């Protein structure tokens, strides 16, 4: 069966952005399973609207916004701590990744997104401001504040591990 142009374009899109989206979801959730579920969900929504967003300059930006929103909504839904999972059947993640994700969760959603996009994905302040639809000054202020908080948490974790 021949694939339509939309299908071919979408397949290429998933091949191009899938891993990037997955890794962002991992940072925001601290769980590989949840990251996989939410990334698939975001891509499903992208396919649902593909006739529209496929014509955007950046379908990735649209899908990323959906994904980040799904991740942040999942914080509110689960409210669970990111302790290491029990049993041997769940995918193991490095302990410090759980700490980073927990630190990200402690931030307001938009600040976590800004920090991930700027410090994690190396987007410029103006690109982050455009995507989040806020002034550049606001992004700078968010970055400064959230960085301090996350860094403090990482420092604390480092000291705790040395003290053990």
């Amino acid at each position, binding site marked *: 069966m021949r694939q339509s142009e939309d299908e071919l374009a*979408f397949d290429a899109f998933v091949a191009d952005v899938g891993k990037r989206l997955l890794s962002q979801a991992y940072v925001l959730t601290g769980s590989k*399973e949840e990251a996989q579920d939410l990334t698939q969900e975001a891509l499903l929504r992208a396919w649902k609207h593909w006739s529209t967003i496929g014509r955007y300059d950046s379908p990735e930006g649209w899908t990323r916004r959906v994904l980040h929103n799904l991740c942040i909504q999942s914080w509110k839904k689960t409210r669970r701590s990111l302790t290491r999972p029990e049993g041997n059947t769940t*995918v193991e993640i490095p302990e410090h990744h759980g700490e980073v994700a927990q630190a990200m969760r402690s931030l307001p959603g938009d600040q976590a997104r800004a920090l991930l996009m700027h410090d994690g994905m190396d987007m410029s302040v103006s690109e982050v401001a455009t995507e989040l639809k806020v002034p550049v000054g606001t992004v700078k202020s968010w970055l400064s504040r959230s960085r301090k908080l996350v860094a403090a948490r990482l420092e604390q974790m480092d000291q705790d591990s040395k003290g053990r």
Partner: protein
Amino acid sequence: MSATTDEELVRSALHDMLREGELPLVPLSGGGIRIRSRGRTWPRIDPKLVATVAAAIVLVAVLFAAIPHRGSGHPPVAAPGLGGRHGSTAYSAYGVQLSVPKTWSVRYFPGCPNTGPPPVLSIGQSEVAYSCPSFRSPTSVGVSVNQGNLLPRDSSGKVQGSRTIRVHGLRVEVATSTSPQSPTPIEWYVPSKNVSITGAGTGALQVMETLTSARPGAVVTPGHVKGYQYLETLQQLPVSGPVTVTDVRTGMSSTIYAIGGEYTFSGGPGGYAVQGHDGNAPCPPVTVTVVSGENVTAPPIMCQGF
């Protein structure tokens, strides 16, 4: 700590995590996402089709009103075409659901594997299948859904290389297959439903990725009934001949035949009255409850003779 050091620390931690997070638990593919979207309840509305569909609905309504019709119940065997969209159909069994392309065939309670043209979705196992050398395996290309934990185990009984993923909210144990079969099967077990799903060949993983909990609208797997009718004299003699099966809920009947006293039929979940005949004389009916996806043995029909 200085702002620069904070930034370096955070950047380093995020980059490290982003690198690690790029490794998918199951491959992400556009094809898999598209197949999965077909199992969704939302329709991808094509404005051009709206007028055509509306006209078709009106036509069907007019025809329906014009043609006298009988009451309808669940069909004895589930028919495909109820739950799918855009070239796929959703099938439910044992509390889970998979969507398969319409090009796939579907077999309920198949016999030994590797029969029939691939690709095939096999649901349930016939009794004979349990004596097959590797009944766990589907046909060379296809997906098989069965009750119980059929993950391959080593000699100590431990599942080989098991890890857990989540598919549409369902926790799934994935085993590292050591089967010599080619193509190598993908082995899944869903603990919350006690269901094993095994797939192999092109398109199998994409179908498996459509896994969700069973939803209304999917084609429900029928149940399978086996029973016997006897003539009760000094001995119990098997009676061959017609057996009437009546859906208790709808009153619809169909006739099957017992051969050497044994009869079988498949039907949608629910109660059925089964009545045998000794010659022209009806025998006392028995009732049997059919459970989706399960093999059920009906109580014996005991004909009294004259």
